[in-house]
């Protein structure tokens, strides 16, 4: 029943006490928001906490939501603000050690493990893995402003206008940040362009 309904209508229905509408919203946006946060902060546990917090804020602010506002703009503004706050807090801490695990699970490797080696990957799978890890690092090397714009543009397919609304800067600033982000990624990934061509 609710699967075809627009996010904004679902939010209005939730305002009227329809819990099912919120469930649909949650199932629709939980995964993309999580991945946005994860790529922003680079830590699964932190990403899950922030995802929980983001939807908690949606619940708390549901009463004040106006139908005219685009739901995804509102949701990603909350998520982005949480990410920015998180990265600011993290900057005060010591930088991650190259030997420290990338996340809390025992299976995860270290940053040293994913640094590119000198020898070429022998099979396609390892090439992909290497590329993805390189990509992760390249994204992480972007500034917060460039990263958020890049993630929303490339992974969430958001128009520049909506990104500008989420970030709270003019659209031209968003485009400029995007251009700088791509330039930086190009430089970072230049040495792997052959790998990128080989990747599926």
């Amino acid at each position, binding site marked *: 029943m609710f699967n075809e309904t627009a996010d904004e209508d679902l939010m209005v229905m*939730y*305002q*009227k*006490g*329809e*819990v099912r509408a*919120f*469930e649909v919203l*949650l199932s629709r946006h*939980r*995964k*993309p928001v*999580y*991945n946005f946060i*994860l790529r922003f902060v680079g830590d*699964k546990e932190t*990403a*899950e906490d922030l*995802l*929980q917090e983001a*939807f*908690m804020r949606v*619940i*708390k602010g*549901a*009463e004040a939501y106006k139908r005219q506002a685009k739901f995804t703009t509102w949701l990603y503004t909350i998520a982005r603000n949480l990410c920015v706050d998180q990265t600011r807090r993290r900057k005060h801490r010591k930088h991650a050690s190259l030997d420290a695990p990338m996340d809390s699970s025992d299976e995860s490797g270290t940053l040293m493990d994913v640094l590119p080696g000198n020898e070429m990957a022998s099979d396609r799978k390892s090439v*992909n893995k290497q*590329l*993805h890890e390189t*990509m992760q690092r390249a*994204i992480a090397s972007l500034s917060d402003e460039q990263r958020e714009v890049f993630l929303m*543009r*490339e*992974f969430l*397919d*958001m*128009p*520049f*206008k909506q990104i500008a609304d989420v970030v709270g800067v003019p659209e031209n600033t968003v*485009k400029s940040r*995007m*251009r700088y982000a*791509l330039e930086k*990624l*190009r430089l970072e*990934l230049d040495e792997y*362009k052959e790998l*990128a*061509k080989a*990747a*599926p």
Partner: protein
Amino acid sequence: MPADDDELEGDDKLTAMRSVWLSMRDEEPSDKGLAALMAAAREKAGAMKDAEAAPSESWWQKVLAVFRRPPVLALASVAILVSGALVIANRSDTMAVDEKAASRAPAPTSAPALDHGAGGQQAGSAALDVAAPGSASPPPSSAAATVPEATTEPRVMSPDKNASDAPAVKPRPAREKAAERRPLADPVKKTEEPPAPPPPPPEPVAEATVKTDAADGRAPATRGPATKPPQTEPTAGGIGATSSAMTDGESMGADVKDKDEATSARQSRVLQLVKQCESAAARGDCAAVKALAARIRTEDASAYRARVVKNASIARCLE
């Protein structure tokens, strides 16, 4: 990619790069905290449902809420201050105009003032005695208190209690004629000098309007400088200076002008007396009618014949 992409597109290197990050798998979030999230969502939904079921505010509560906002309060304060300033400004303008009008128009003679009584007679006589322009006389009785200070037109009060019956302005035509015929003495001097002294040599036109009392038979003691119109109280030095600067031609022109003014003033005075007489006759106050009719006859016999005698209600009183 979104449709509003710009020059960032169309780059082979970028396309290759994009293929890399687009091939990156999205990860599934764990269900950790999902139950807590849904519990909070249910609780909030219940609260919002209750809030919606609750009766909404009435229109006056909404209006009150709007007026409680600081910007609206500030706007209201400014509006009140501005409107108050406008009202005060308008009032002062009106008062100034009233003062001017009162100073120009002859003193109002209210019909109720004609009510006879011990003090009422005095008041009535004071009200009936409309002075000629320039004539000044301080009211010796309590009736002076009824004359507004703003009225610069002086009034002549007769000390006689029966003045309402015997008009105190009888000598006025002669006085006016005299005023028209010759320039008069300095009013400042007049108030100080006895009535007998001969008039000083011709003086400026500006003084003419206040010199109509020269031929007045009233005792100078009844006049006071305080009741003189301000425009008729020039300083002696100023008058002298003006006087010496005037030529004979100018003096003659001023005399003609003065004559016109006196005539028009008399006509308006007579007109007002006629109206008062008519209203007194309509009320049935024959005593007042008689007094007023006598004054009208004295002032303007033709107006008396044309408007008083021919008025049936007045004529009934006069019979």
